[in-house]
């Protein structure tokens, strides 16, 4: 197993997983010496009935201090401050964040305000400024994709000052993450597909990236194995509890892997096409993953080849000649996208030209790709990509991923 010259790994989050994991929350809070949580979530999550499930599961054991279910998708400092006031007024002593990245980040922001009596959140932004434990925070992911339930960062926007504040601290890791199959049972197939591929892209980029380490590798392998065995099935059979738990577990494992390594160009371009064209994160990741791997193949072929085992199983791995394993991994990921496209009735896009919004309008006009490539140049993740990329390289990859054609190998840099 590879051992890098230096690495760090930290995931101080207690993971509680299962079909009835929510019921463990009262005990988990008691262990953290708390018993009056504020539940933070958004309208989508509460509208799907998930807060009722959470409340039912825990109300025998504890009193819910407050439920705030109006975190907007574009949450900011004003929301954080408003909800911190609710937390105090209702005498809460802990937080339960139910949802994705925006909800969990908002809860983290509230936690800094109420724990540090902060009137100016800015004082705590940056790396490792927090020096002590905050109030107990339990995260309950609802998408099986982002992995934000195990990350140590939070981004809070200040719309008035046009600022984006970044907070990084081990004290921002949730104390507990609850991985419960009931939280994803009602996810529509297209979202199951996209978030699952998002998790796959985390794990694969962690395993093939420059900052990989033994623990990120092991978490990534487990995640990839679970995704290879369950994603298409879970998309086909949404009510399959086992498949849901497997995918939710995989997303958490992948989150642990990539937040302790780094990600590369798939994320670089995914962030950029998200900000320029509004492509949902998971969809961007799903489309870009095979292209990122194709671009980097000459730098990562040894470790990429290994991924055929967790992704396709022992038999396929053993019968595929060694020098074909890496390209088979890429082909297999393309095939997963194809299968997901089919089982979702075409709702899972394979290429950028197929991405449409709710009204069926194409989200990525081809003429926007240069803008996306330009934006990509200033994304921090580009430094961790195995092979260098400049503007032309980004554009080449984007054009191929738009059209649905493999990369022209002759045009790939060999640095």
């Amino acid at each position, binding site marked *: *197993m590879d*051992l*890098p*010259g*230096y*690495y*760090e*790994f*930290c*995931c*101080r989050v*207690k*993971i*509680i*997983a*299962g*079909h*009835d*994991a929510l019921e*463990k929350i009262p005990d988990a809070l008691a262990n953290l*010496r708390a018993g009056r949580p504020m539940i933070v979530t958004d309208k989508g999550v509460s509208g799907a009935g998930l807060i009722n499930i959470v409340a039912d599961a825990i109300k025998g054991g504890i009193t819910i201090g407050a439920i705030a279910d109006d975190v907007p998708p574009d949450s900011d400092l004003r929301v954080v401050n408003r909800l911190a006031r609710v937390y105090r007024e209702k005498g809460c002593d802990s937080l339960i964040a139910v949802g994705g990245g925006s909800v969990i980040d908002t809860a983290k922001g509230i936690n800094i305000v109420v724990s540090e009596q902060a009137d100016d959140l800015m004082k705590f932004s940056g790396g*490792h400024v927090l*020096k*002590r*434990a905050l109030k107990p925070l339990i995260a309950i992911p609802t998408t099986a994709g982002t992995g934000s339930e195990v990350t140590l960062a939070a981004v809070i926007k200040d719309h008035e000052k046009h600022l984006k504040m970044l907070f990084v*601290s*081990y004290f921002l890791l949730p104390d507990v993450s609850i991985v419960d199959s009931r939280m994803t049972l009602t996810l529509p197939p297209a979202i199951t597909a996209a978030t699952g591929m998002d998790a796959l892209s985390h794990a694969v980029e962690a395993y093939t990236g420059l900052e990989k*380490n*033994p*623990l990120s*590798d*092991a*978490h990534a*392998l*487990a*995640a990839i*194995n*679970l995704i290879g*065995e369950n994603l298409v099935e879970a998309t086909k059979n949404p009510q399959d509890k*086992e498949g849901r*738990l*497997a995918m939710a*577990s995989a997303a958490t*494992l992948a989150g*642990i892997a990539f937040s302790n390594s780094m990600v590369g160009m798939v994320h670089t371009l995914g962030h950029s096409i998200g900000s320029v064209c509004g492509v949902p994160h998971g969809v961007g990741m799903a489309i870009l993953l095979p292209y990122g791997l194709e671009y980097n193949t000459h730098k990562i072929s040894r470790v990429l080849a*290994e991924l055929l*085992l*967790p992704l396709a199983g*022992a*038999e396929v*791995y*053993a019968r595929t000649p060694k020098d074909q394993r890496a390209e088979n991994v890429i082909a297999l990921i393309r095939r997963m996208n194809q299968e997901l496209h089919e089982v979702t009735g075409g709702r899972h896009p394979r290429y950028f030209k197929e991405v449409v919004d709710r009204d069926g309008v194409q989200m990525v006009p081809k003429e926007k790709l240069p803008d996306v490539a330009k934006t990509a140049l200033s994304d921090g993740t580009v430094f961790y990509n195995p092979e260098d990329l400049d503007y032309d390289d980004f554009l080449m990859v984007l054009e191929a991923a738009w059209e649905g054609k493999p990369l022209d190998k002759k045009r790939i840099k060999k640095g």
Partner: protein
Amino acid sequence: MFLPERYEFYCPVKINSGNRALDHLPFELDTLNAKKPFVITGKNSVERGLVDIIIDAFKDSGLTIGIFDGTPSSPDLKLIRELFHTYRDRGYDAIIALGGGPVTDTAKVLNIAVSGEPEDLEQCAGDGLIKKPLKPFFFIPTLSGSGYETSRYAFFEGRAYASRFLMPDIAVIDPRMTVAEDAKTTAVISLAALTHAAEAYVSTGRSPLTDSYAYPAIQFVMENLLNVIKNPQDKKGGLALANAHCLAGCAFSNIEAGIAHKLGKVIGDAGHIPHGICMGILLPHVLETQLSEDNYHISDLLLPLAGFDKYAETGADLRGERAIGILYNFQRDLFAAGGGAIARTLRDAEVPKEILQDLAKKAFGYGSGCVDMEGYLKILEQAWEGR
């Protein structure tokens, strides 16, 4: 992939591993709001020059550190009381254990005392009786110890403490500190790691998260222990083994102790051979028994033991046997590489055959749920005889 219907996992230990990892200590202390750490270690670390390296790491930090380098092999409560007063009087705010075994146990127990009062040591003995976080606690492995260092356990003067709060906040694994001393010491810690990790793989508490710690631990031992025993100066190998040591302790904290662990403890406590060596002897015999009882997890062990290619080319029904075969071969190779210092069998280790019955009785007394006394005896007899 194996996925249980429900699982829990917790590992608060941050791993900092590699070149000049110790140089980050002042920064890491600062992230936990600590400024004046108390280093607990033993004479051996002074003699090996390891204490100087720590002092050096703090040279330009502006921080003051305290060092106690007199931890004996059997520390007692009198020592804890003395250290407690030193800690309080000098205003220390964190504890660093340099080295394993009694050093780490002393540091953990001292941490219970200084985070509350010395009287807590009585009330907190047992499982889950420590109720709140302790002072920042760092562990620096030196490739010696018991294998419990990063775990939730501490053993002190006949008392056992178990709590998630006893796990170190950070394990700082620096290749300058993890150069092998001698074959046996290295084997004790590495075989403890191998056994704890392997038993995590086949235990009822297994989950993808225990696998994620156990997998690299097993691989690092299998790929490096022989090399390090043949060439103690192998720095990269020493670093990998220390990684295995730390990761296996984390996995072990999340499972029920396995049979090899329990039997090994009974033999170790009887004073014959170190616990790690016992466990190394017992492991394949225990797995063989479990395989005959259809423990399907054992076939998965082939992946970390043998690597991707060998795992994939072995038919699913043969993987368990092959995994066990690899462990027997490993015992044989270790015995040869260590010039006989690393016992393959209980007979090699000069455990009298006539006490096996007693040992089985004792192991059964600890309870395990799945093996009866005859089962224990059978394993012990096989481990005495060798394959």
